[in-house]
């Protein structure tokens, strides 16, 4: 046995038998069980040093709290450990490939974080005098210029807080524009393959949704749109179409579709969630869109943060521009004029209202502009090309084993498989995805879009190296072969190695427990006491 200077054995030695026992703590080395703050916190402690409040006669009228706030505290080191331990139970882009289709889980540059934290951006108030924040409006205006240039439009409403909020903004503009013409229309056309936010938004804005079926090849046929327009003559307010669509395909008839909806007096809302495929390759404005949101948290790399925040600016055609919501920036030559209220409006400006208090997601604007400036026009185009290249590389790596619902052909930045390759294997789509977790991968988007059976939508993004893609493809091939070889044990009940086994979602929904409640003190039976 080799010894180091202190005499401690340094060789690993023979692997013994597997561990015979559960650990006392429930921990597995680096994999820690962490209780809730309510179970470990203190009611009489505090992790922030605060001044002793001055003696005072409150001016709170009779509004004082009668009961103290029931919330525990942790000291600073305890807080740090609690959240660091919890964080280690999360999968993240920084730790692995995150092929979640439609979500564009690309690298989040830390320069962006640093820039957003400059006091001149992070420590300014939306209602401090406009004269004291010229740099803020300069930044918003420059980002707007980039967005308009990249999309080939002349107007953009910056304030929406996420993609769905952008959809709402676009659809409210459309409704307002139609009303301004003295018309009323009640229907919005939405393809079956659309993301759930599209129909939800149309309904929220007071429209009835009419669905358009997908064609055999996964795209929307102009004839199908015309058929619905004619069936609801004079009633169609808009079409909401995602392009590139949720099957990972560019809609080849998009221009004809745009013309058809325009001829019928309606508007073309484009869901721009998949803009990452075509930045620098085509301008949506040239395709005839009237409104399109851009998820800055997808295409322009602002972090997803475990579910937000996002930012969803909406570019608008000239026909919709007058109806853009407050606030907006009016450019008079080089001067930027901030328009916040209706008394500042000029001829023709007829905003439909306001989407949110203040100016929208400034913190996200800084990050997105930092990303754009870093890439430049050449880098942005390269990023889209690499995103599409990577998706197609994954496609050819898997298409002989997995099934492409629309036949073998190029895709955009994401590739859609269906689950027919699992037929007769006894392995369900969900089991298959969960087995990916054991291999160290976040599963792809599952069961979306709804137009194919057991959809598996893989979006590798441009951030993956070739070696990373090769390993991913090899892993997927191994899993598929295993499923086809009848090795069901690898799938049923997976994941086996994650911090948690499969969680009971049915029970969670049937009897919702949505907050921590102190357990009843266990009663001591009198005769036992």
């Amino acid at each position: 046995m080799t010894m180091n200077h202190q005499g401690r054995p340094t060789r690993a030695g023979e692997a013994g038998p597997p561990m015979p026992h559960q650990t006392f703590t429930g921990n597995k080395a680096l994999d820690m069980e962490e209780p809730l703050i309510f179970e470990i916190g203190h009611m009489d402690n505090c992790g922030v040093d605060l001044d002793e409040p001055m003696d005072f006669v409150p001016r709170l009228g009779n509004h004082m709290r009668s009961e103290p706030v029931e919330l525990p505290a942790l000291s600073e080191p305890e807080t740090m450990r609690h959240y660091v331990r919890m964080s280690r139970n999360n999968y993240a882009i920084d730790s692995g490939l995150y092929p979640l289709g439609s979500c564009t889980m690309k690298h989040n540059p830390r320069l962006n974080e640093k820039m957003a934290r400059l006091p001149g951006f992070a420590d300014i108030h939306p209602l401090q005098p406009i004269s004291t924040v010229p740099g803020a409006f300069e930044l918003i205006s420059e980002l707007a210029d980039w967005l308009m240039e990249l999309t080939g439009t002349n107007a953009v409403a910056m304030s929406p807080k996420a993609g769905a909020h952008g959809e709402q903004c676009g659809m409210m503009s459309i409704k307002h524009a139609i009303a301004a013409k003295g018309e009323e229309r009640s229907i919005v056309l939405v393809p079956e393959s659309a993301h759930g936010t599209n129909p939800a938004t149309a309904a929220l804005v007071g429209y009835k949704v009419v669905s358009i079926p997908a064609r055999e090849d996964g795209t929307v046929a102009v004839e199908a749109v015309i058929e619905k327009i004619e069936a609801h003559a004079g009633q169609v307010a808009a079409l909401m179409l995602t392009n590139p669509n949720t099957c990972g395909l560019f809609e080849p008839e998009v221009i004809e579709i745009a013309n058809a909806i325009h001829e019928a007096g309606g508007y073309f809302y484009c869901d721009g969630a998949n803009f990452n495929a075509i930045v620098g390759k085509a301008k949506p404005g040239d395709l005839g869109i009237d409104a399109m949101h851009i998820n800055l948290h997808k295409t322009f790399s602002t972090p997803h943060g475990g579910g937000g925040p996002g930012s969803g600016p909406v570019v608008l055609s000239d026909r919709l521009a007058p109806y853009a919501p407050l606030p907006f920036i009016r450019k008079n030559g080089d001067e930027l004029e901030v328009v916040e209220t209706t008394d500042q409006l000029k001829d023709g400006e007829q905003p439909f209202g306001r989407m949110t208090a203040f100016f929208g997601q400034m913190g996200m604007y800084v990050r997105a502009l930092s990303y754009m400036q870093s890439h430049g026009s050449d880098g942005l185009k390269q990023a889209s090309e690499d995103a599409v290249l990577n998706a197609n590389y994954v496609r050819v790596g898997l298409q002989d084993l997995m099934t492409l619902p629309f036949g073998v052909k190029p895709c955009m930045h994401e590739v859609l498989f269906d689950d027919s390759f699992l037929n007769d294997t006894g392995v369900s789509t969900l089991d298959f995805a969960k087995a990916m977790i054991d291999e160290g991968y976040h599963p792809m988007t599952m069961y979306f879009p709804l137009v194919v059976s057991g959809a598996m939508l893989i979006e590798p993004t441009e951030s993956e190296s070739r070696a990373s893609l090769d390993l991913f493809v090899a892993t997927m091939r191994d899993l598929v072969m295993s499923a086809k070889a009848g090795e069901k044990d690898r799938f049923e009940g997976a994941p086996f190695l994650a911090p948690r086994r499969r969680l009971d979602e049915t029970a969670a929904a049937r009897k919702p427990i949505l907050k921590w409640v102190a357990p009843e003190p266990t009663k001591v039976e009198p005769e036992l006491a």
Partner: protein
Amino acid sequence: MRYLPLSDNDRADMLARIGVDSIDELFADIPEAVRLEELTTLPRRKTEMQVERQLSAMANKNVSAGSLPFFVGAGAYKHHVPATVDHLIQRSEFLTSYTPYQPEITQGTLQALFEFQTQVANLTGMEVANASMYDGSTGTAEAVLMAHRVTRKKKAVLSGGLHPQYREVVEGVSAKLPGASVAALPADPTGTEDILAQIDDETSCVVVQSPSFYGQLIDLKPIAEKAHKHKALLIAVFTEVVSLGLLESPGAQGADIVVGEGQSIGNPLTFGGPYVGLFATRQKYIRNMPGRVCGETTDAEGKRGFVLTLSTREQHIRRDKATSNICTNSGLCSLAFTIHMTLLGGKGLARLARINHMSAVALADALSAVDGVEVLNSAYFNEFTIRTPKNAHDVIEALAAKGVLGGVPVCRLDKSGGDIDNLIVVASTEVNTDEDRAAYAQALKEVLA
């Protein structure tokens, strides 16, 4: 380009593997007429140093709140956020994760959401809270829509103490919904409006902000009683969540939905966003609630775990029948809220609230000692409204020229004119010192002289 791992050799090999001659073959579905060669009008790539230089130059043109006596509130507040918070939310595992749709590998996010929901519910005095809205203003609009669903009525009554921009957001959404109406009361700086008279059998909800936009504290109990008599819901709104450390909770006063801005805890000003909307309600309404919710369950080995639940309300399942279209919410901002709140605890929050209240009381005393200045509110938390003899916009600009950011002229948001034009909403928090307050009083004296 530093963010792109593929080399030109990789690209060539990969194209060959795919079986195409050029990258453009993969873009063949884009109609030829619209295919772009180059984006000649935009600048080309920049190094990290160049970007930093350019953006810093823009940032440096702005006057940051920490650089001078600062009293601007009206919906967003300057507070001290412990360094721990910003460090933890930048952990890769939190920052670069997505919505926890695969709970087995996102227990970190889910457990934090469960803690967040519990904190929000306990603070507001409600039974349940959701996993966040975009911000207070959009959350308020969602609360109104939820009340319409619950009551099957469509008339919202809005107090004149509601933040004017919150009112505009509610009006905007309502205006596009068939049959929905909004009765908005005129500006009410002192909390003396007769909102009870507005509530009738048609009313779906009454929306009342306390502390109001003007800082006035409002007694919600009689409003809740009258609303409930007419089968309407009381929606209680707040923009300053720190106030809940000292004030009776809206839940204890009978609110049915409590919605507000959570920015003050954990989140920097950042010029208005991203922020975090807090949304809480009663258990019986949860199936009408908008947004994501995290719930407790067990895994196949019986261990406790957390999942997103009640998703049959949501757009990805219910599509046009969903309770809301929200998808991405304010995840990371809610995490910042939870971490800061964990550091504070109930006791720390109460103390922070007392410091804030004292800061405002001291400022009110200093300002009302200035000739011609009147403090309008009888009861307030860390914010109040003053009337000055001069136009408020001009006063604020003149103060800024003297190096004091003295608050928000109400006329910036409310153009109804008259007395409004002379009102300033002023906030004072734990960051303001005696020197700050003295500087403000002195500057105001000079401006009004």
